């Protein structure tokens, strides 16, 4: 016995009709075209220093890329699980400080120091995350803030000053090389841009693959109806913890880029405002678009440079206005809203669909 239904082929959207369906196989050539475009964009990205020649402008681009990678980590949690963290500076600053301390105090060479710093991030994320991911919504956000501020305060204590440098900061002394690059090379914006851009591309690919995987779909299902997922026989705690680890790892990688580039760390990198910046760039660019945080970081960094260097120090005022405008007029963020407009524009230009024929 099988079921039949009169309405089993509900009306499709016009874009679906033309493309062959939201996820249907005829849509695959479009997917391939998208990949070609993305690969071309990545290649072009490496050439940006040829166009942007000013040292200060290059410096801004590197800062934007680092903040963008940090934003990718924070936005991953929002996009896949709807969970907003205000404490990811714990991983951004934590990775930077772990690397700085291992290099400066421990005398480790760059590669082992980087690896160990990432190990520290994973260990801390596992410990903190195992407690945090039991909560959802505002409770989760406030707990991330609490944990972040706890570590921020801990790093500034007199007892930890010998490791973190306290309010004086920590000058990072790097030993050895990474792919033949020394500390001096990492402070060069062109070299650092190439490294950052490679990390951006890898992060986008990795997060994109996760999103398309069964794990990514499970996360989406949890975001939409966690209880239903449990009624499907799935444990929801471990997948959410794994997603939190991924998010923390990406934030930690951004922190390592920051430490490599700046060779100096201050407690600011652990402060909740640093977490807030990553959140702001994610919302401005768009959490629901893969590259949204990167564009948000670019807008944020360039806006900051233009308005502050122009003698106007009301930067936070402009950030506030920008966030209000995004929340009121385009919740999908700048890139997300542009993408929505483009989709609507394409649908308007499509030929009418003969629903009688397709149904």
């Amino acid at each position: 016995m099988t079921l039949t239904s009169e309405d089993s082929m509900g009306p499709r959207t016009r874009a679906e009709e033309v493309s062959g369906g939201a996820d249907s196989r005829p849509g695959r050539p479009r997917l391939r075209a998208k990949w070609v475009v993305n690969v071309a964009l990545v290649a072009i990205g490496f050439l940006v220093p040829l166009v942007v020649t000013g040292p200060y402008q290059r410096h801004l681009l590197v800062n934007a890329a680092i903040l963008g990678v940090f934003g990718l980590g924070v936005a991953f949690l929002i996009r896949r699980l709807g969970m907003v963290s205000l404490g990811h500076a714990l991983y951004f600053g934590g990775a930077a400080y772990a690397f700085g301390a291992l290099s400066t105090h421990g005398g480790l060479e760059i590669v082992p120091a980087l690896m160990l710093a990432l190990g520290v991030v994973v260990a801390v994320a596992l410990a903190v995350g195992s407690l945090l991911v039991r909560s959802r919504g505002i409770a989760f956000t406030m707990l991330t803030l609490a944990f972040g501020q706890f570590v921020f305060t801990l790093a500034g204590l007199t007892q930890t000053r010998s490791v973190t440098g306290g309010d004086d900061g920590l000058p990072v002394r790097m030993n050895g090389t990474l792919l033949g690059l020394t500390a001096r090379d990492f402070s060069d914006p062109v070299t650092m841009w190439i490294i950052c851009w490679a990390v951006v591309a890898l992060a986008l690919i990795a997060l994109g693959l996760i999103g398309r995987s069964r794990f990514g779909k499970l996360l989406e299902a949890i975001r939409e109806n966690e209880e239903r997922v449990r009624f499907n026989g799935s444990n929801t705690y471990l997948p959410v913890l794994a997603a939190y680890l991924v998010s923390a790892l990406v934030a930690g990688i951004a922190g390592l880029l920051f430490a490599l580039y700046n060779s100096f760390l201050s407690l600011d990198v652990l402060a909740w405002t640093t977490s807030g910046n990553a959140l702001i760039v994610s919302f401005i660019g768009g959490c629901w678009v893969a590259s949204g945080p990167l564009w948000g970081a670019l807008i944020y960094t360039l806006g900051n440079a233009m308005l502050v260097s122009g003698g106007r120090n009301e930067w936070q005022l402009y950030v506030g206005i920008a966030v209000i405008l995004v929340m009121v007029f385009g919740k999908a963020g700048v890139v997300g809203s542009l993408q929505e407009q483009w989709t609507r524009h394409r649908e308007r230009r499509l030929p009418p669909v003969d629903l009688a024929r397709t149904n």
Partner: protein
Amino acid sequence: MLTVRDVTVRFKGVTALEDVGLDLQRGRVHGVIGPNGAGKSTFVDVVSGRRRGGKASIMYNGENVAGRSITWRRRHGIARSFQRTSVFPDLTVRAHFELVGHTLRDESVDELVVALGLEPLLDRRCGQISYGDQRRVDIGMALVGRPAVLLADEPGAGLSRSQSLELARFIRHLAQERDMAVLYIEHDVDAVFEICDDITVLNLGRVLMSGSPAEVRQDHGVRDAYLGREE
């Protein structure tokens, strides 16, 4: 197969269920009917693990599973569908079945998809298909893994009479074909009397009557409280 006893649920002093119990047996469909607020869905919540605590006893294969989690119950063969459709709007129909099939290691999901008539919709996002099709995806997810017990909470809610009856007959067919015990809650009394082997009538949180469809139909108390007298 599944024996439920002493289910009592109180909400801030108001008794929603009082000492409710019933037996589910393989290959048989047990209907639960009653007016709105009788406690039908609350009862399913208790049996499925959504609501735990209290003194309820839920004996399943010789073990009291009253303290077990939702996930444990599902993995051990107690599945439920929902009164309100609970599909994931952004996922395709295929992704729904792949996720559950993978979790429960069920390789016969394709047959289920065909039986539910969902094959043409596999690559459509669930948020874009009709309500009736969403209901079938919802039921389908509960059937993945060949559960021993299906708790169907108003599967026909929001469907037309004919669609609801068709779905009821399909569930009846599956119960026999898969030797599955079904708890069937539905407002459509005709459908319940047609497909159920046993019926429990709830009223104001208490069992008013339990028996075969014929016995329930004959019961004066049930007719007065719920079915109404024929003119």
